């Protein structure tokens, strides 16, 4: 399973980089989304893919019985999903505006400040 996930994550990274290297800014955003998803999947995989119960302590007890999933990795992924969501929402607005202002979505036309 871990091997499969590793291949999947590698594909994600590769696809993300490929999309980011295209000329269209829309594909650039798709690349960025794939990239953040790849990183999240990576954390999910390296934190250990065990079959555990949800890490919630039942009412009235102090410990979880049996193997539980690692809550820290979940918290990290959740946080980075939220951050990625916010940042990408911003990127979409930015690109929408940029396309309106520059009148193109071709990265090669956006060289005015280089």
């Amino acid at each position, binding site marked *: 399973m871990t091997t499969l996930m590793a291949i999947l994550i590698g594909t994600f990274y590769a696809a993300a980089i490929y999309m980011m290297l295209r000329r269209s800014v829309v594909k650039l955003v798709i690349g960025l989304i794939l990239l953040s998803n790849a990183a999240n999947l*990576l*954390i999910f*995989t390296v934190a250990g893919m065990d079959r555990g119960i949800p890490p919630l302590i039942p009412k009235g007890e102090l410990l979880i019985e049996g193997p539980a999933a690692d809550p820290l990795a979940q918290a990290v992924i959740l946080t980075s999903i939220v*951050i990625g969501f*916010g*940042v990408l929402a911003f990127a979409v607005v930015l690109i929408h505006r940029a396309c309106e*202002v520059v009148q193109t979505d071709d990265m090669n036309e*956006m060289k*005015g400040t280089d």
Partner: protein
Amino acid sequence: MDLEVLVALPIIIPLLLGALSLTVLSNHSAQRWLGAIGTALLLICSVWLLLHTREVGIQVLEVGSWPAPFGIVLVSDMLGAIMVVLASITGFATALYSLKTVRKRFERFGYYPLLHLLLAGVNGAFLTGDIFNLYVWFEVLLVASFALLILGGERAQMEGAIKYVTLNLLSSALFLTAIGLTYGLVGTLNMADIAVKMASLEDQKMVTVIASLFLIAFAIKAAAFPLFFWLPASYHTPQVAVSAIFAGLLTKVGVYALYRVFTLIFTADTGFTHEILLWIAIFTMLTGVLGAAAQFEVRRILSFHIISQIGYMILGLALFTPLALIGGVFYIMHHIIVKANLFLVAGLMYRLGGSFELKKLGGLYRNHPGLAVLFLIPALSLAGVPPLSGFFAKFILIKAGVEAGAWWAVGIALLVGLLTLFSMIKIWNEAFWKASPEPNPAVPAPTRNALLYWTIGLLAAMTVCIGLFAQPIYQMAEMAAAQLLNPAGYIEAVLGGTTP
């Protein structure tokens, strides 16, 4: 117990200020007051934190009473505290400068809340002791900087912002990947705990891989060679006050992160990582200054100089001797103030001369001799002319380079200093000395610039003071470097000596 909260204040004050200014979004004067007075308060608290840290030693705050390494800790060591003070100085100067320069239109779009949010993110990054929390603060300051960068919505800003956003998001993704691999390897996110567990691993190959990932991620943020091109493409596009705070602080957060992880965590294989850092430093210095030589727009010249200065700071880390680290910390202290100041001066040049292009400027010395003096102080300091702050910073670094026998680095550093002087003289000759190309009646020179002069003068006075009173500043840098070179002190302060 009582003073522990001091560590959190530099984060919580700007957050609260930002939130409060958001709630009074339509009341512009309230926002301005919150900006000026709030950042002054932040500055006072930061200086207090620095003095306290200098007296008592490394301060640790366990957020929410969760003990390290399980909870998030805020740590204030000398380096962190110094950086927070510098950030607060820059924030205060920018807020003052913004009072007169930021248009109502931008205030309505939330200029001040974004400024506070940026400061909260920067201070958070300097104070956190948790690697994932560092990532979160990076993102906070990034989001704030994205929005500040495109306030105004002009074409150049959009084009610059796309490059800025893309490269910084790429860097964030690499940073997150590195955090994921770190967690997979050692199962903790507390930096002190990571340092302990990484050192005890048998197989150091994976550690080096992770170190390289961190290196690339932070080098992009710091605008180091070869991935620096987002900086000169974007930094000259926004408002001058925004450019100033970006120039002063943002890349330095990347440099700080490099200093933190490569002195605390990745110290086992310095032959590999610090050798790479050395070459990065050399090329960063060189490409930055050569890029500046080809430019004829004041803000673009200054942007390229940020890159070459980053090279010096990384050089301090790369040499990794006590003197070199002192030099690096000293350099950061000098650079943040000087660089922010130069951008503010450029803004005033634009107000008085009507352009950022050197060809269209001229005669500023004849008409505004005060501005000419205020330009010369930071400009000569940047180039390293004694007795200003830049001289001591460069001197310490070059002495460290000679002692370490890094002759290439020393030679390049000297050459780059010379070329920086050339660049500054170019601005001086074109903008200040030569006669004005044409009488420019079309631009009504705004009056009432006293506040702007005061802001610039304040920063210039700091530059002079760092030069004249180099000894106490040097001692602080020495303490910071000593703490960096002895990570055991940091680890013990965080984990309480009981390493699990």
